[in-house]
């Protein structure tokens, strides 16, 4: 199966560049180099700014909110007043204050699920690619089984069995990421495993764990970074969607996904209750995707100039 490419190739500008060209570039920590290159791209900067704004709102919003998220301050769906600058929600609570309070949960849940999924997926992908035997077969079969479940359906299957618990959502979102990450990393690592420097280590009897950690892992940093960004974007979408469906944080807590759910029926009367959290989620996911695209472009650019 072909690996989905996230970004197209950059220009290849040197016709017939012989293999003898040594570009002077240190790359002990390749990921640092990629991030540095990425941070020079406009799209990465725009993306970082977008993510930064939302993270600041989520972190410091609760400190500056004029009201608590649960107090009733006006009639349901009341328009903007001097006290509630963006009006009241379907139950008469301050939309602006609930917005400021509602961002933190989705952020930490998405981050935790992403880290879990990428770590597990990378480990599985590297081991599968390196083993090249029955273990690879078994791991990939299990991978296929998990891949068959649409992510949101898998999470909701678990929720209906165990209940709407935040830890469960984090774990299951992570689990559904893992096989997708594993497939990409395995694909990248398989090309590395085929290279002779791995065989050179094999002939010398180098420890297997060291071959995986020193030989394979540093050579898949580009796809790894890209996956990290991509999975973060999807995690945010999934976690927000689950709470939008009503299976995340439970009322009366303030949460962006939940706010959209609570206010969507009164969208024609009081659009702010829906619009604010929708915009926040949109800005956040577009931001993470722009950063990811910047990283992918930088990684491809570096690889091109190195080989």
């Amino acid at each position: 199966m072909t690996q989905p490419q996230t970004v197209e190739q950059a220009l290849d500008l040197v016709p017939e560049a012989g293999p003898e060209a040594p570009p002077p570039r240190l790359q002990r920590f390749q990921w640092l180099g990629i991030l540095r290159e990425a941070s020079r791209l406009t799209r990465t900067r725009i993306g970082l700014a977008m993510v930064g704004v939302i993270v600041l709102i989520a972190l410091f919003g609760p400190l500056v909110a004029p009201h608590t998220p649960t107090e009733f301050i006006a009639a349901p769906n009341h328009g903007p007043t001097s006290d509630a600058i963006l009006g009241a929600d379907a139950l008469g609570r301050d939309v602006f204050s609930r917005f400021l309070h509602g961002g933190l949960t989705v952020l930490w849940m998405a981050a935790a699920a992403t880290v879990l999924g990428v770590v597990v997926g990378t480990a599985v992908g590297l081991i599968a690619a390196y083993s090249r035997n029955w273990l690879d077969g078994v791991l990939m079969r299990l991978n296929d089984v998990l891949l068959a479940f649409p992510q949101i359906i898998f999470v909701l299957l678990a929720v209906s069995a165990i209940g709407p618990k935040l830890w469960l959502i984090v774990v299951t979102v992570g689990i559904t990421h893992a096989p997708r990450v594993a497939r990409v990393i395995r694909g990248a690592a398989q090309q590395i495993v085929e290279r002779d420097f791995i065989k050179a280590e094999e002939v010398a009897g180098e420890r297997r764990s060291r071959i995986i950690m020193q030989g394979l892992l540093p050579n898949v940093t580009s796809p790894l970074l890209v996956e990290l960004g991509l999975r973060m974007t999807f995690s945010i979408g999934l976690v927000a969607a689950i709470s939008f469906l009503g299976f995340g944080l439970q009322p009366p807590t303030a949460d962006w996904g939940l706010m959209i759910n609570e206010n969507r029926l009164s969208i024609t009367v009081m659009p702010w209750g829906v619009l604010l959290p929708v915009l926040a989620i949109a800005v956040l996911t577009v931001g993470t995707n722009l950063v990811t695209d910047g990283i992918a472009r930088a990684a491809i650019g570096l690889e091109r100039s190195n080989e």
Partner: protein
Amino acid sequence: MSATETIREPSVDVIDLRIALTISGVDVVDEIGVQIRPGEVLGLVGESGSGKTTVGMALLGHVRHGGHVAGGVIRIDGRDLSTLGERELRHLRGGVVSYIPQDPGTSLNPALRISTQLVEILEAHATDGGAKQRMARVREALEEVALPSDDEFLKNYPHQLSGGQQQRVAIAMAFANRPHVIVCDEPTTGLDVTTQARVLETVRDLCQSHHVAALYVSHDLAVVAELADHVAVMYGGRIVESGTRDQLFANPCHPYTRRLLRAVPDIAGKRTVVGIPGHAALPGSRPQGCYFHPRCQFARDDCRAEFPPITDLGEGHRVRCYHVADAVRQAPPEGAGQADRRAVGEDVVLGIRDLNAHYGETQILFDVNIDVHHNECVALVGESGSGKTTTARCVAGLHKQWTGEVSLRGEGLARGARQRSGEERREIQYVFQNPYASLNPRSTIGQTIARRLKLFPPDGGGDIGAKVGECLERVALSASAADRFPDQLSGGERQRVAIARALAAEPALLVCDEVTSALDVSVQAAIIELLGELRNEMGLSLLFITHDHALIRTVADRIAVVTAGHVVEYGPTEQIFTSPSADYTRKLLANTPSIEVALGQATAPSS
């Protein structure tokens, strides 16, 4: 060449051609001037990065993405290509000028039947006839290249043909429209010598019988010597020497040409090869003055100041060098160095007995028996797929599916490297074919070698850092290379590192798997020199795997010829070259191109 042909107008006339990169403006090739008359073959020779393919493509009005023609004139049949519109250019390509690609495996469309790919080139230039005539022409073209022309064959997809057949299809395609000019881009790279010989013969015959002017782009001097009427040598994007084949090979005048010829091993005689130090001048990093001066022993101040103008030595022999006289006078004549014989020990270091190897259900090796003595170099020669690399991998414990015996100093070895003792692993070290893939790109050279020293601690211990330096100096690299990453080194330097890594373990046997096939000939010669020196210093035994027959005459003490998994000939080098016993060996030797044989300076080894 007959008198009428010399009078003919040249089909190809290139004057002062310059092709540059669009963004940086750096020139890829410059001041290129060539003429090719009908029926004539011009060999364009150069190492990687010299710009030879760029010149070849330019004859079709094609410049690769990111570059453009920045000056000069290309005339085909008297028509200036720069005056042609898109439509006329399209009619030129495949109609008047044809192209034979380097690798037909990637140049033929995998999704289309060969009949489709052959017919469409006729359709695109159709001036007369219908589908029936075209089909008849396709069959005729296939017959001209000695391929079957029945419907069954035409229905094949490229992957169903062998490499040689694919190349013939590409040649049939190129000649289908009876072009006036043909550009061959190293069309025999990757073919075995027998197929190569047949393909070259086909190209030569077709060019002669149809009066086609051919540009033959190649890095292989021996092939060019056998095929070309005229030769132009490129270095750093310029032609540094050109003339008739005899002028160029018998009386080379540019220092680069002379050094290049000394780097080429020849099957006609055992001789030392001498590498050229330094590396090639690539677009964007070419020095001021003569591009070759950093590598040239005659370089003086004038060489560093200005690129030399053309010196005409008469009869069309042109050179761009200030010191032609010095170069010719001072450099030793070609092929004079006789390789010295080493004392080969009595004791067997590596013994291979009745080795049978399988890959899945397919048997790759059949009863292979080979001994490598102390301080001996045994070469395993064979075409790709013959099983020579599998043999090496069984010895190293990389390939585990084998039966029989592989022994080190009489002690049988386990199949897999991991089942062998550390001492056994230390004694047998492996150097891989492609130095671009055999070093971890994320480890410094120092880390790579230090790790090997930790796995196989040297006698007496000592400081690892100092040891790493010693290892690097042993392969003529400076100790400061330890801080570098593989991509900061050239291919030749990387291969030196790979050798240093193998030697760090102080092995008894070095398995060299096509260690020079990814390198340019001038770099190959330097690596061969190095291996020779190391053998003398360290008393190493070598199992040397190669498909280059000329090379083995220079390096090997004994030869095992492998084909289809069988060793068909095994004996001392000179004996095999002077009186080969197997038909297969005779055929191989007869088909291997040789400069000396082509020039009539020597006779083919087996004839």
